[in-house]
């Protein structure tokens, strides 16, 4: 670990009387691949929503690259270098594959509205640059042939990949993947694992992965944290997690004396 990129300190999240995250402390280092697992309703997606500013924590601190993200709007946090995908794919359903990625290039534009209206020489140049960078990304992820298709027409696995491409187009330092393997068959899952690892190496990213599927998490993560009922019950290497009694209990249930 070269340095801490994301730091959560005793973060608590309460919705009315429901406390879904309690004193959660956790960190992600630069270019580290970390997994966050836990049974249904353990608070994994809540963690994502807290990091990306969709929710504001009831208590605790969240810092990215040394500076707090608390109170910032989601788009600001994205601009600082955190990109995410969603558990239920949230593509821009009326747009083409290409335009979906293009929206993510919006925040890197050097020029404002007047540029789009007046359309001076610089405008065409910048649009060309964006186009070629999008094409490059789509090629890497094998979606170049579908670039003009409606994103709704893509198979489910491709939609998930497109979401990753779109997140990468914001040029993040940290990529949050929310159950990227959900709904995929075993072959697709193996492909996806390769893809995540490749992406991480190629773009030098840190990746935080929320996942249900143990095989995916165990296969690629360097470190894993386990949540259960909003509390961290374990953290360590995949091997340590596999042997952890609390984790086994949370996933498979405890042996009772009766």
């Amino acid at each position: 670990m070269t340095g801490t990129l994301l730091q959560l300190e005793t973060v608590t999240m309460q919705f009315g009387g429901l406390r879904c995250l309690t004193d959660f402390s956790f960190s992600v280092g630069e270019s580290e691949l970390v997994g966050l697992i836990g049974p249904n309703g353990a608070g994994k997606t809540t963690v994502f929503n807290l990091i990306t500013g969709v929710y504001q924590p009831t208590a605790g601190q969240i810092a990215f690259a040394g500076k707090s993200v608390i109170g910032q709007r989601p788009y600001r946090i994205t601009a600082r270098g955190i990109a995410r995908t969603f558990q239920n794919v949230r593509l821009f359903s009326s747009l083409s594959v290409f335009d979906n990625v293009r929206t993510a290039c919006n925040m890197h534009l050097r020029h404002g509205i007047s540029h789009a209206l007046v359309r001076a020489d610089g405008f065409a140049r910048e649009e060309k640059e964006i186009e070629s960078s999008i094409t490059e990304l789509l090629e890497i992820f094998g979606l170049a042939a579908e670039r003009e298709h409606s994103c709704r027409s893509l198979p489910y696995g491709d939609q998930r990949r497109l979401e990753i491409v779109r997140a990468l187009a914001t040029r993040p330092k940290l990529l949050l993947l929310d159950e990227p393997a959900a709904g995929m068959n075993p072959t697709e899952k193996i492909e996806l694992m390769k893809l995540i690892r490749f992406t991480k190496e190629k773009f030098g990213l840190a990746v935080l992965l929320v996942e249900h599927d143990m095989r995916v998490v165990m296969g690629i993560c360097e470190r894993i944290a386990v949540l259960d009922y909003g509390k961290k019950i374990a953290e360590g290497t995949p091997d340590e997690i596999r042997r952890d009694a609390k984790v086994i209990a949370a996933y498979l249930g405890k042996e009772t004396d009766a």
Partner: protein
Amino acid sequence: MIERTKSILLLALVLCGVLSLFVTNISPYYYDIIIGVGINIILAASLNLVNGYTGQFSLGHAGFMAVGAYFSSWLTLSFGYLLGLGALGTTTAYVVALIAGGLLAALTGLAVGIPSLRLRGDYLAIVTLGFNEIIKGVIQNAEPLGAQRGLGGMAQHTNFFWTYAFAAVTVYVVLSLVHSTYGSGFLAVRDDEIAAEAMGINTTKYKVLAFVIGAFFAGVAGGLYAHFKQFVHPEGFNFLRSFDIVVMVILGGMGSTAGVCFAAVLLTILPEWLRAVAGSPWLPEWLRPIAENRMILYSLLLIILMLTRPQGLFGEVNLKRKKT
């Protein structure tokens, strides 16, 4: 598309100039319809940026139109004489007043937009509707603006050229916005606000921007209208007028500029055409009572169209509720 839009705009403006030479000898009735079509194109295309491309359901477009109509009229009535240096001077005063009317409408749009764009869907529709009524109410009680008597006496500056030149500019602005990476923000906001924020798009900025640009052109359209009819009345900008524009957008197809322009033409001409049909001598006698109730026929046509093509004539975006 990206490279040639500017030349297309220029071509359109030249075409407006050339065509305006040919419409001078036209009967006033048809001229009225032609100008009405142009003004409705501006209104529908600009509302489409808000309702169609950005997905914010505004029902107050006539309110912004009123702001532009009254402010530009007040300007030309109060200060027009200062520039009374022949045709060039009054035309300059007129165009400046139109743009000033648009700017005040845009400012109003900003003032209404910032607080109310926290709301979505039906709630935003109700707030904008209320705002429309407030504007109307304010004008009805503003003595310098003629209150309930209306405001008249403006010179007829609006002609074919200015109407269609502004229509061309409106269409150009809307199209060049939505066909750029900058403008992809509008479409992202419409499709999924949470995902848009996650992609680094400031959704509030885009919503307010759409509102402000839409209001600007509504204000310009109001100015054109006022300087064509030479008389404006608060009731001319009630919510029924707003509804007319919304109907054009929905019928044409939300998020399709070609569609809403077509609908603006169609819906301006259709009632007049039905009037002509009802009055024509070759119409069989038994059909005449039906044709005379042309507004019922008109409504019926709208219902049939919406049932058979809910996405509008040209549209691809369905009106079905989005997941939130």
